[in-house]
């Protein structure tokens, strides 16, 4: 249950970050609706943010391993 709560907290933090980062990257002048290019940008931005998260997670993990083995 502790595990699930952490997983949930982690997902929520990720969702929040992506909303803020992708809103900032993709919406320059907020109009009366999201146009299709903004929606496309948001989808790509979200995918790239998750790629980045995974990349950072791996790089950080392997760095911690390297520091431990020194």
């Amino acid at each position, binding site marked *: 249950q502790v595990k699930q709560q952490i997983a949930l907290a982690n*997902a929520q933090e*990720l*969702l929040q970050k*992506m*909303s*803020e980062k*992708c*809103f900032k990257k*993709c*919406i320059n*002048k*907020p*109009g*009366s*609706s*999201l146009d299709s290019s*903004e*929606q496309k940008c*948001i*989808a790509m931005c*979200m995918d790239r943010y998750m790629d980045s998260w995974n990349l950072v997670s791996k790089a950080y993990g392997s760095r911690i391993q390297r520091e431990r083995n020194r």
Partner: protein
Amino acid sequence: PEMKEFIQMESQRAQLQAQVHKLTDICWEQCMDKPRDKLDSRTETCMTNCVDRFIDTSLQIATRFQQLLQRGQ
């Protein structure tokens, strides 16, 4: 049971207010240039659009996230 409901409602209200603070911050940065005598209509429109577009963005992301999770399982 009344006490519990009351606490739940107040805690929900606190969460909504936290969200209003965050949205005001984000949309202030997006829409406010130099503060003037009044909120001109252009800034006002920008502010309300900003709130709705931010929520659209969050919803789009949350929906897609859930789809990815389900596909992954």
